[in-house]
């Protein structure tokens, strides 16, 4: 029993400082930072004594990501986590620029659970939408030539038919 407490205490002491691209500092437990495969590798090779720069991620995004990692390092019940994830995504989805940056950052930091969660949410946003609706929602430029577009639309003709 005593040894376990000591271990936990030791764990707690292991804090690491992460610095965002806009120089915002975040002090988190090592096990939280470890949720990112990339940061884990950096910690493994360089230690946790000096601050780790996360150059490609801005402060607001990193803050949100660390909030996710912290929640997911607690080992709570699955139902609790699913509910939390849903609320987390509902909030993120409201601001598409933020959502997009979150997606890129989760890729960059290699947090597989978050990458999947965002992908599922994104897929849900594409459901029942026509190509034009998708372009409008995500401000995507249609760079297909008329011939290419016609060819693709003909190939996928079945998808445009009423069920």
């Amino acid at each position, binding site marked *: 029993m005593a040894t376990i407490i000591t271990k936990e205490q030791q764990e707690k002491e292991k804090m690491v400082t992460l610095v965002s691209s806009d120089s915002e500092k975040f002090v988190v437990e090592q096990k939280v930072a470890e949720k990112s495969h990339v940061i884990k590798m950096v910690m493994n090779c360089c230690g946790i004594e000096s601050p780790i720069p996360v150059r490609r991620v801005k402060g607001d995004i990193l803050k949100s990501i660390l909030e996710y990692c912290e929640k997911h390092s607690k080992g709570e019940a699955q139902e609790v986590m699913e509910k939390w994830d849903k609320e987390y995504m509902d909030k993120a989805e409201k*601001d598409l620029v933020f959502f997009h940056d979150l997606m890129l950052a989760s890729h960059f930091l290699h947090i597989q659970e978050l990458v999947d969660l965002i992908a599922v949410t994104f897929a849900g946003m*594409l459901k029942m939408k026509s190509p034009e609706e998708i*372009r409008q929602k995500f401000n*995507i430029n249609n760079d297909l030539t008329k011939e290419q577009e016609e060819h693709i639309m003909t190939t996928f003709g*079945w998808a445009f038919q009423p069920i």
Partner: protein
Amino acid sequence: MNLQREPPWESLQQIAQFLDPKSLAMSSCVSKLWHEAMSSNHLWKPFLSSHYPSSLHLISNTTSHHSLFSLLRNSSSRRRHQLTPPPPRISLHELFFAVDLFCGDERVVSQGKLASEFEVDKGGIFRFGYEVEGEGKEGEWRVVWVVVMEGCLKAFTVIERVDKGRVVGGNGLWFSEELPGGRCCVGVGGGGGLVGEVGLEFYCDVEGGGRRKMVRVRLGVLSVIGCRYVSLDDGLRYLEHFLL
């Protein structure tokens, strides 16, 4: 709120894993990058093997999974939605109906005019009528209805029949004859599944001493299946085979 940049290829691949075939197809039409990301074989292979497992044998180096899946889906959706047939190539204004009715040796009614000048059914079915004045007779009838194409180069006999007819109700006498199959694949090994029909309607003139008078002639083409009149367009498309 707009995105400044498109999701990168890796993200699209990730997202694509969670899409159903229809959403995947729609997403493929968005842009070049999206098309590239959404048409990878590994995304479509599970759909192909769950919907059309046998088709995996058709996959070659030149066939992509998404195009094979689409080929099969397009085919089944064509089957379900039945491609609308082309509009008829002939119209009622080009057809001349010649109807001759004899009872015994006596000619009872003769009528010849453009099909469009008959009473045309308002519900869009191949059914026509006209008023006549004739005597109701008893005996064997000879009923002839010929459709002649404008210019008198081609003709098609819808019905030519000698019999007593079929009594329908108190005042109707009907004649019908199965029609031949068109020159296409319809009705292989038999008729076209169609029947030409001529109906005579009588009126019992009580004041005139109870004499039966013929008041109307009806012409139509029915489908054997369900005994329904065919649509005007289907009737014209059938006649096309013989008149063009």
